[in-house]
């Protein structure tokens, strides 16, 4: 029989105002095994911890229940206190009577009743607890950064500067990401490429950074400190070592009709291409869908003109397997598809464009060489209308419920730049709110309005109707003037909502990193651990975690790097002892557990067992406790109950359920 001490925390008034803490302690004393119960104002304080230590020593406690906040907050605190008093830290259980009780209830009597029940369950569990000892695992001193945009580049640079090897995996043929597509950046209006390309060069030249472009993460196994990742290097059909980046192949390529991804499909590129002039690496790839050689077998022009002999049509995808201690996700974003927003006529008129397309149009290297013109007739626009929140802050499921955060600022930027370069163009912005909370942001917006005379109208646009004369009729409302507006425009720019990049769900699943309903990766704690995923060893950088502008992305990228460095700096990690174990006498060998294990921790072996005198060779599940993360998926899928989780055994959980139902 255990000798259990129960410690009920008031948490100031957080718990005590809704739960009769004295009553909880009193009731706990009636439970089997409980020899000590007390309540105290702040159990997590020095004095509170001392009370636990004292009771363990004086009353020879073998188990401790602390009725307090979520174990996510102070479980470690109380475990350490118990350890100090000589008790195994895994003999401590937390009854969460704050988040699960006092914070969500108002009626004191009912809340107290529930707190007593939660305490009872924890006591029932401790009665079955056994001392556990954590193991150790090593840390591979190398980090993987998934995504080579500004977030990934910054994270990689910071980690590499601390002296650790970093690999960047980038899906596209070049690093640079979304930022490389932007023309100017707010609020300083410096050229995006001018500030990004030095970072790209720095990353590519850094001796600790290795860049895999045109590559994707294929498979992830292992756990914090010891991940094994398979990276698929897609065939470029160009030898990276031989290619000099002269660009002749792209000039001579006869297939030039593929839509340019980099220019958002606004113009075309050759079948062999580098996405943009400053691409890193400056080695083209062959798009086999448009390449004549790959489609018909006849052509081979690029190979003929390549002086370096770098073209290799026989190249195959290559899988590189590498070990990492930490993984940073920096997969970035894309603009949403506008299929649900037909009223803005995006699919009907070439003169309705997204803001990202406008970035390309404004850019000197873009499809119009930086000239603002209509795609329908090449004429210069005179009236431009910007529509804000297209797909953002959407109440129904047509769009996204969140604010995309960057649109207010880039629209002010676009408006300002157009008015600056083409003073004869009238610019009107329809907005719901203008949100400019950032350093020098509001000043920037006011400049657009006050100095550049951009016409801001509070109100939404209901419809954009292409007219027979080639103009666009914009039907909107002015909420401040309370009137309907019909306005003829030459071009309409949609501030399209952003969403996490396609494929992030797949990556999150591979990493067992959690993801929210909008496909943003979830942080371990919204306020206190914003750059860590709840999955140990996985860190978040940039927009994959939530909408951000460039300064915020860079700041977060640095923060993620620091967290990764903190992990890589350790030589060894203590492993969670709450791992699964298979009872070889109960195991059927059916493989179901191995099938559901997300960590690949379960294997099977033919083992001779002695089942009450019957000796036979059986197929038995074996858990690699270094790989097991204690998620418990195997224990619930095992039909015979052979799989059990230490520290959360089936008996312990059923004892808790029984205690609650009693």
């Amino acid at each position, binding site marked *: 029989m255990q000798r259990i001490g129960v410690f009920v925390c008031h948490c100031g008034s957080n718990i005590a105002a809704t739960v009769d803490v004295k009553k909880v302690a009193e009731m706990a004393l009636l439970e089997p095994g409980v020899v000590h119960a007390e309540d105290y104002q702040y159990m997590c304080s020095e004095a509170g911890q001392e009370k636990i230590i004292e009771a363990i020593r004086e009353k020879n406690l073998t188990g401790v229940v602390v009725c307090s906040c979520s174990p996510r907050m102070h479980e470690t605190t109380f475990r350490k206190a118990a350890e100090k008093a000589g008790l195994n830290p895994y003999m401590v259980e937390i009854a969460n009577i704050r988040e699960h009780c006092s914070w969500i209830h108002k009626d004191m009597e009912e809340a107290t009743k529930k707190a007593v029940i939660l305490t009872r369950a924890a006591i029932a569990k401790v009665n079955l607890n056994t001392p556990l000892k954590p193991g150790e695992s090593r840390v591979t001193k190398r980090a993987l950064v998934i995504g080579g945009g500004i977030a990934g580049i910054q994270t990689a640079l910071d980690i590499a500067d601390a002296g650790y090897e970093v690999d960047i995996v980038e899906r596209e043929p070049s690093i640079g990401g979304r930022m490389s597509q932007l023309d100017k950046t707010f609020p300083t209006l410096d050229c995006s490429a001018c500030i990004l390309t030095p970072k790209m060069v720095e990353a590519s030249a850094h001796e600790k950074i290795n860049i895999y472009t045109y590559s994707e993460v294929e498979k992830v196994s292992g756990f914090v400190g010891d991940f094994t990742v398979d990276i698929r290097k897609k065939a470029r059909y160009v030898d990276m070592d031989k290619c000099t980046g002269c660009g002749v192949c792209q000039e001579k390529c006869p297939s030039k009709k593929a839509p340019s991804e980099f220019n958002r499909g606004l113009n075309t590129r050759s079948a062999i291409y580098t996405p943009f002039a400053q691409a890193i690496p400056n080695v083209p790839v062959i798009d086999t869908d448009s390449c004549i050689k790959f489609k018909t077998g006849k052509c081979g022009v690029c190979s003929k003109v390549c002086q370096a002999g770098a073209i290799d049509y026989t190249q195959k995808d290559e899988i590189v397997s590498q070990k990492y201690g930490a993984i940073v996700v920096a997969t970035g974003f894309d603009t949403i598809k506008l299929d649900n927003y037909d009223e803005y006529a995006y699919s009907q008129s070439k003169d309705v464009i997204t803001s990202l397309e406008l970035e390309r149009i404004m850019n000197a290297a873009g499809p119009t060489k930086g000239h603002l013109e209509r795609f329908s007739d090449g004429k210069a626009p005179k009236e431009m209308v910007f529509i804000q929140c297209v797909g953002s802050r959407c109440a129904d499921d047509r769009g996204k419920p969140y604010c995309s955060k960057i649109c207010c600022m880039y629209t002010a930027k676009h408006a300002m730049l157009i008015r600056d370069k083409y003073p004869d163009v009238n610019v009107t912005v329809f907005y719901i709110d203008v949100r400019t909370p950032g350093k020098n942001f509001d000043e920037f917006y006011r400049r657009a309005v006050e100095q550049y005379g951009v016409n801001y109208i509070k109100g939404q646009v209901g419809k954009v109707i292409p007219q027979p004369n080639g103009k666009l009729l914009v039907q909107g409302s002015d909420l401040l003037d309370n009137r309907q507006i019909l306005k003829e425009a030459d071009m309409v720019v949609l501030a399209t909502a952003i969403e996490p990049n396609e494929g992030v*769900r*797949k990556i999150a*699943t591979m990493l067992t990193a959690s993801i929210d309903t909008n496909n943003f990766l979830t942080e371990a704690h919204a306020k206190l651990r914003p750059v860590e995923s709840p999955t140990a060893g996985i860190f978040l950088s940039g927009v994959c975690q939530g909408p951000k502008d460039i300064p915020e992305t860079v700041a977060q990228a640095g923060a993620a790097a620091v967290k990764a460095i903190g992990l890589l700096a350790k030589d060894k990690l203590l492993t969670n002892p709450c791992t699964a174990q298979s*009872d070889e*006498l*109960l*195991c*059927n*060998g*059916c*493989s*179901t557990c191995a*099938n*559901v294990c997300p960590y690949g921790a379960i294997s*099977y072996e033919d083992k001779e067992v002695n*089942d009450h005198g019957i000796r*036979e060779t059986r*197929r038995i599940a074996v858990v690699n406790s270094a790989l097991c993360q204690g998620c418990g998926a195997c224990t619930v*899928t095992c*039909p*015979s*109950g052979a799989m059990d989780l230490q520290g959360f055994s*089936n*008996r312990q959980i*059923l*004892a808790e359920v*029984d205690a609650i139902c009693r």
Partner: protein
Amino acid sequence: MQELIKRAKELLEDGTVARVLGWKAGDLPYNPEPAYFDSTESLADFVYNGFCGANLSKYLIEASKLEGKTLVCLKPCDTYSFNQLLKEHRIDRDKAYVIGVGCKGKLDIERIRKMGIKGIEQISGAEMEDAADTLTISTIYGERSCKFADAMLERCHVCKGKEHQVYDELIGESKETKDADRFAEVARIEAMTPEEKFAFFQKELSKCIRCNACRNVCPACSCRKCVFDSNKFDSAQKANVDSFEEKMFHIIRAFHVAGRCTDCGECSRVCPQGIPLHLFNRKFIKDIDEFYGEYQAGMDVNAQSPLTDFTFGDVEPGIVGERG
């Protein structure tokens, strides 16, 4: 049947198999029982007729541990169970010689009794070769007759088809006997109010005498030690404290076989209390079909199991929750 016996004799004699797993006559004309035959002489007792409903797949778990191959007679629907056990590594394919035996529907003595036919002495028309449209039944009260189809097991009315999913050779003709909607009864129960559902299951399950026949016959219930027999989980003792423990037993059993149950119908066939136990399993099968696409356990050994294999297209838990 003669062809089957002849072939079994040959395979025993040439040493291909060490024993034959089939059926022998029971003490009554309508209860043949599973039996091993390890010599050509013993095959004299071998029978195969319309009452040989028993699914012999599960016996191969033990037979796989014996020396030599076991010839096993499997009806089309039994082969699904065989495959499922293969998938779960419970039986050894190399230790089995599967003869796919023909099946034109199997009979349910309870259905015959329910027609008021009692005191049965002889039944003709149930033999495999000439499975007739009509059964002629001699009873102590005189001769009676009934339609073969009316006397079929419930599972034969929702027959999965006449194709064997796995076999080494086929003997005899099969016929698909499906004439009813497999999920009609499940849909009827789904439409009930929670109170009606509870009353329905309470009524049915309170008949349970916990003889464990359903569990023991079930090919999916093949754990070395059942959780209900183990002292590891405190579940064995709970039988005594809950007046309605049977419902937990059957519901837990249904959860344990969910996604693995081939709907062979053995649970309902052997229940001495006539509880329609297959309905629990069929509810799970219906849900799986709806959530994950049509899936028949045991059809393809290499198919992904809907409940234990993850795919990116899987339905979100919230949707499962909403639907109830």
